[in-house]
């Protein structure tokens, strides 16, 4: 049902389901063998402390399992955020 063009995702904001702004989407990691979407690569907002999350330099990895829905914002589940895949 909900299918989305990747280019439409560029510069979309990532928000948790409790209303906290997490950051801006930078890229998406996919597994080409299976076609699974693995992670979102997010640039954390200045107000967000990425301690304890999976990060690489100034980028943060959000498991795609945490994504609830994508409309004007990308809404992710706060509790699934830290899960490593």
């Amino acid at each position, binding site marked *: 049902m909900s299918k989305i*063009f*990747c*280019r439409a995702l560029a510069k979309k904001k990532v928000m948790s389901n409790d209303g906290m702004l997490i950051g801006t989407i930078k890229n*998406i*990691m996919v597994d080409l063998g299976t*076609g699974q979407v693995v992670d979102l690569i997010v640039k954390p907002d200045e107000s967000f402390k990425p301690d304890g999350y999976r990060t690489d330099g100034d980028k943060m990895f959000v498991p795609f399992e945490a994504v609830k829905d*994508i409309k004007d914002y990308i809404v992710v589940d706060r509790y699934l955020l830290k899960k490593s895949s």
Partner: protein
Amino acid sequence: MRTQITELFGLHVYTDRAVYVGNVDDVVIDVDGKKIDSLAVGNLNPEIGDLKGYKGIRIPFRIVKSIGDIVLIRHIAGVFRSSQKDE
């Protein structure tokens, strides 16, 4: 193999009978299924068949065989015309 999705943009798409199809313009993801749904291919090869004026086609990910320096998809007789006659 894990790749950033932007790496796919601009890759050339060929069928496994070495017929050029086009370039990857965009990737459609299925948010509920958490997987790649299809590749949006543009800059189409006018030789592949009756395109009815379409500027692009969506290639379902299940017919993609492999992705490396190019994208290799399954050749479907009747959809893609090849230089050799399809038996």
